[in-house]
């Protein structure tokens, strides 16, 4: 597991890079926590008032000092206090994370449930009308911006049927599973739609590849039943690219789905970071980007490991 140790060593380096990048870029954006709070009224402040507020928001020191203080804190697990929430950044993130995680899992489940069978089915009907149908549907899914899907879903449900899940709130899964599912199903469908489309396409083309390989043809020529060839021999190998794709996509979703959260008013990570940027809540932006990056890297590491397990021919050495 030479590869694993090498990845683990570079882990902190990448995180350090992310921390520097987020720290600098959020401060390069014009405006600060004071203008975010006061808007144009900030112009009524005297210099003394401004200085007092800068001290209050912790932005009165030079950048290196601020960065040093933040980094030292972060190493001890203290990501600072969010000025909008008035709570430790880590608490705020951990409150929002369950929703994001659940939404990502649910979208992935929808994507795999629809995409895998559809892809396999299409592959067995290569270039026949039903294959074309699946492919065109998949491409529509991949090419429709998710805000269009989301807005249409909301519009059709509210105007056509007069029903809608409760928006703006989030009930934890273990508190009321049904209510929780009701809140997440539409956003999950919206995200899952495009996700399922990608899975379908990948599954189809991977399946086609595998079906043309020697060992599958051998199995077939030896008279193995078509279904058994398909599921027992071909599918496991075709899963590799599906796992890769799903993993990467899942990693992205763990960073929050800004636009879908915005439309469905879900208090998830994505919207939280967007709001934090708009309100110049530096500590919250920094902490959550760091958190998202960490998740992304962990997921990718797991994907690589899964990849190696599924396909022993691949040595992880040179990736």
């Amino acid at each position: 597991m030479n590869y694993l140790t090498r990845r683990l060593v570079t882990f902190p380096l990448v995180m350090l890079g992310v921390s520097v990048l987020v720290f600098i870029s959020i401060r390069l954006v014009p405006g600060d926590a004071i203008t975010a709070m006061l808007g144009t009224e900030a112009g009524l402040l005297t210099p003394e008032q401004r200085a007092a507020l800068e001290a209050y928001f912790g932005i009165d020191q030079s950048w290196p000092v601020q960065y040093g203080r933040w980094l030292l804190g972060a190493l001890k697990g203290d990501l600072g206090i969010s000025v909008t929430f008035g709570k430790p950044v880590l608490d705020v993130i951990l409150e929002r994370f369950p929703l994001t995680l659940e939404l990502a899992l649910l979208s992935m489940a929808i994507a795999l449930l629809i995409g895998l069978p559809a892809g396999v089915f299409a592959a067995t009907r290569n270039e026949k009308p039903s294959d074309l149908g699946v492919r065109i549907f998949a491409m529509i899914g991949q090419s429709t911006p998710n805000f269009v899907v989301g807005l249409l879903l909301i519009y059709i449900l509210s105007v056509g049927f007069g029903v809608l899940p409760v928006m703006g709130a989030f009930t934890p899964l273990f508190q009321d599973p049904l209510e929780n599912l009701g809140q997440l199903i539409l956003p999950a469908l919206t995200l899952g739609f495009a996700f399922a489309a990608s899975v379908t396409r990948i599954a189809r083309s991977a399946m086609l590849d595998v079906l043309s390989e020697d060992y599958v043809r051998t199995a077939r020529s030896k008279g193995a039943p078509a279904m058994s060839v398909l599921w027992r021999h071909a599918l496991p190998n075709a899963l590799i690219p599906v796992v890769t794709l799903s993993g990467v996509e899942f990693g992205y979703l763990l960073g929050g789905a800004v636009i879908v959260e915005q439309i469905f008013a879900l208090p998830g990570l994505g919207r939280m970071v967007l709001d934090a940027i708009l309100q110049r809540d530096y500590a919250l932006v920094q902490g959550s980007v760091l958190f998202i990056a960490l998740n992304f890297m962990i997921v990718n590491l797991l994907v690589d490991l899964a990849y190696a397990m599924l396909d022993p021919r691949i040595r992880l050495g040179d990736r």
Partner: protein
Amino acid sequence: MGKSFSGKLICGVALSVALGAAGFAVPAAAATLRMAWSQDATGLDPHKQTAFSSLRLLELIYEPLVRLDDALKIVPALAQSWEFSQDSKTLTFKLDPDATFQNGDKVTSADVKASFERLMAEETGAAARANFLSIASIDTPDETTVVFNLSQPDVPLLTAMTNINAAVVPASEIAAGTIGTKAIGSGPFKLDKWEPNAKEVLSANKDWAGGETSIDGIDISVLPDETAILAALRAKQVDFALINDPLVATLVPNEAGLRLDRTPVLNYHVLQLNPSRTPMTELGVRQAISCAVDRQDVLDTALLGEGKVTGPLTMPAYAIDPSQLFCYERDLDKAKQLMADAGYADGFSATVIAATGEPPTAAAEAQVLQSQLAEIGIKLDIKLMELNVYVDTWLKGDFDMAVALNGGRADPYSMYNRYWTKAGNLQKVANYIDDTLDDLMQQGRVESDPEKRREIFAAFEKHLAEVSPWIWLYTSYSYTAQQNNVEGFVPTPTGSLFGLSKVSVAK
């Protein structure tokens, strides 16, 4: 809380069943008002917060000494009565002896004194401090009497005190340093829970001195997309909502069971010119722009006509008929003539800044203005900016022109002293002042006779429109949408939601 809806099943609609019907709501019979808005409060410190969205929330929790009613008349809040001395240099309030804070303590003159001292202290960083600079000292002869001693006559002070920025907070909380982290006011509702940018849970304050509220509480959801708010209203998931975008608001009345209330507000849409930049330094150029802009057309296009053309003064008590103001009727020939006389017959290029989504119509306004000004050869380049970037740029006065939605006040002096007086804090944004404007403002500040004040400010308004440092366009509406079973909400031109204290929800 959290039982804002009961998990009843809706049958018959195949799709909803398929989607897991338990998550779908039917109108709740609870006396809790379910409310939605698109922009959440940004903080809980009533002295520091200035965003409309924060004020809307804090007005339900805190109380000022006096407040404005729906006709913009000053009415009692924490104070039962008040009186200016003969020379307008002392202002005395009698507090409501029943008023209590939500922690059970009585509201006393000491709390009022401590609150105003906090507001005035520079380390608080309260932007509203600028409105209270004439307060020299505060006396508290007894528990329920407060006397403000002023350094000079200041008639608009009383109006400034109606703002929630002048809320009275408990002296004990000031000492403990918990203003802004805990919201303990004396108002009709208590804040039980606040998740920023997600939701607020408010419950009725049973001990409110102002009477009894007929709802048990308010659950506020933040739905950032206003189309989603409309959808939630249609699905009867929300009883009451604030809407900012006129494009969305105009769809509400089409819906049976929903009602839209529009109230003209004091805030005004304006095209700010920057008279310190050439060629806006030229009076003729500024006037030409004023003549070339068809205000009604901008209103009709960008806001679907949802508003009213206005001059600089937007409060009904002072506003004069816009037709009496300089060039409020579009006159392209005059505009071209003025441009030519100023030496810009061929026009010029300039950049106009606007904030994305604030107001929602900003981008549309900029585009109509761009097309109108193109007719006299002015080529506008539109720069849309994220709100905070815009504010930063605006405060530095770093623009040729700016599309803005600026806050209005019930009193002309409090509304404009920041821009159109020589000592105005925002002179670097306005970049224009002359003796006439400054004189009229100072006269208006000390004059206590209402009729004379009106004359002074009418002259001020006419002069301001004529020298055209800015092109005032129109005022729009504040919208509240509600289910028909919500009764008794009275909106006010300040946009306050204080009227929710009188609202009831019929079963």
